[in-house]
């Protein structure tokens, strides 16, 4: 019977240890946890190229992140700021130049099929003027980072205190196709708030609220 006592005590202790360990698994309660979700997008837009190689600032395209709750997916017209001039990768343009020189003809404009999708969406013709006969169609991006409708995440509040984009979105500048890196579960949010309250952010103390009403209202 001594063994029984010991066994039981151990069993109960084991239950609670497992329980508390499990509780640390932040994504545990999300039924459809999308950590690692990286769907194919209608345009093979490369964050690695734009944010990584070309070092375009996150907030160049997602300019609302600093001003609003929503970071926003850029309007197609924002793409045109550059892609009015850049219609294909440099290599392709050079190849065409070389081919043209060789053939002794004028180089033809090269348009990559992915960038062509932008022009299509805006209903532009070959000379990038609005073609009234073509229907404008918004690009249907697939949403990756989502929180439930009862959660209110405010980009503005995070950006203004200096939380980096990468802390939630991961190293997007290295991703060819964007992937959800974090679980975005409540536990993940709360634990980050706790950590920052304890450690401060970039040497400054911060007060990240642990109130329910910080996110749920």
């Amino acid at each position: 019977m001594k063994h029984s006592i010991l066994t039981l005590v151990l069993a109960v202790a084991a239950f609670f240890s497992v329980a508390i360990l499990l509780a640390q698994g932040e994504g545990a309660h999300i039924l459809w946890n999308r950590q690692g979700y990286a769907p194919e997008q209608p345009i093979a837009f490369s964050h690695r190229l734009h944010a990584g190689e070309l070092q375009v600032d996150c907030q160049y395209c997602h300019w609302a992140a600093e001003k609003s709750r929503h970071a926003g997916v850029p309007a197609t017209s924002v793409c045109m700021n550059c892609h009015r001039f850049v219609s294909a990768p440099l290599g392709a343009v050079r190849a065409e130049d070389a081919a043209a020189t060789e053939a002794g003809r004028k180089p033809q404009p090269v348009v990559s099929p992915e960038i062509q999708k932008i022009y299509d969406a805006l209903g532009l013709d070959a000379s990038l003027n609005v073609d009234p006969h073509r229907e404008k169609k918004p690009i249907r991006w697939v949403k990756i980072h989502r929180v439930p409708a009862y959660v209110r995440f405010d980009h503005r509040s995070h950006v203004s205190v200096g939380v980096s984009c990468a802390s939630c979105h991961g190293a997007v500048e290295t991703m060819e196709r964007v992937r959800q890196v974090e679980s975005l579960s409540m536990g993940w949010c709360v634990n980050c708030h706790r950590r920052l309250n304890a450690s401060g952010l970039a040497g400054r103390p911060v007060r990240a609220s642990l109130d329910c009403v910080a996110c749920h209202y």
Partner: protein
Amino acid sequence: MDQTPLILGDKTPGDVTNDISRLLEGRPTALWWMAFLAALSLLGLGAVAVTYQIATGIGVWGLNNTVGWAFDITNFVFWIGIGHAGTLISAVLFLFRQRWRTSVNRAAEAMTIFAVMCAGLFPLIHMGRPWFAYWMFPYPNGRGPLWVNFRSPLVWDFFAIATYFSISLAFWYLGMVPDLAAVRDRAKGIWKKRIMGFVSLGWNGSYRTWMRYETLYLLLAGLATPLVISVHTIVSWDFATSVIPGWHTTIFPPYFVAGAVFSGMAMVLTLMLIARKTMHLEDYITKTHVGAMTKLILLTGSIVGLSYATEFFVAAYSGNEFEQFVFLNRAMGPFAWAYWTMVACNVITPQLFWIRRVRENFVFVFILTLFVNVGMWFERYVLIVTSLHRDYLPASWAGYSPSLVELATLLGSFGLFFTLFLIFIRFVPVIAMAEVKGVLSIGRRRKNAA
């Protein structure tokens, strides 16, 4: 010790086994079938009502923004109260060495379990989103983790009911093991043998086991006695810890426990009188048993009556206008009919048990126990509804009347209870044979063997 025999008819242990096991072995009687079908249809009605309610919303009940609880919690407290007699008879009377309990404890414990099942149903279905009921349990989660509110009497309730149900079930099953073994050993059919063999855990009547069994039984009785008091105390705290006049009352724990014993005893008696008649258990359930139980009803009924009076006194003495109003409103307000039904059934009619002729007339006893059941249901109804419907701010005062769905759910809970009880009396020894065998000699001259 009581000189009248507990068990009539000069039974031998073998007779007991025969008499009780026989009930499980024949085909069910027409009466049983009728009762079973009636209970089953009530259960079906309740199931339809609950399904409809969960599919549509709590709005199909008659509740409103002022009266947030009514039939649901009334039924819950009512059934929990009923569920108290079983443990009381098994445990408390065991500790007090009341040998008459042996004839009724099995059925009373079964009743407890079924009543607790009925009771447990209501907190579940009364939720707006019952599919999230598991949030009441502090399981590890990925929300931070976010636990539960251990300051909430509803969490206390959850633990109290879970514990009470588990312990009662263990107690019931433990008491049944020797009887199951007896049934196993005389079973004819192979399936019955197998099933009984499985559930009787290889019991063989070894006295080494018996000795520990007796100790364990005593231990469980010792644990269950404070448990039974704690459970209804906690249920009473649902109300007593609130700020609502008429709920916020320190008298509640003893008042509730007495009320629970009162209603539970009445329900046991109701059921036992039915079982006695329909299953021919006249020798096992005798005037002694009924007499003892009616006296307990008389006692607890008087405590309940005193509690009612005390509430009024405390309110009057408090000088608190809200408190005073609530009690005046109970007795003379829109729900006065319910209040006076409660007083008539709980305080006045049980006083008839002072008369021996009433105690010994089983028809009378049966009717009076029904009154008590009705009265105790109304006690909870009065307590919950009258306190809520007119509280602090007159502008928020409202009325309440039950909807058809609520009535159907109440009937359904009775259906569930009786269905389970009828199944129980068909498949499990309805009287604790091993215990009755132990009290055969009481009040009877020792029989000479040979």
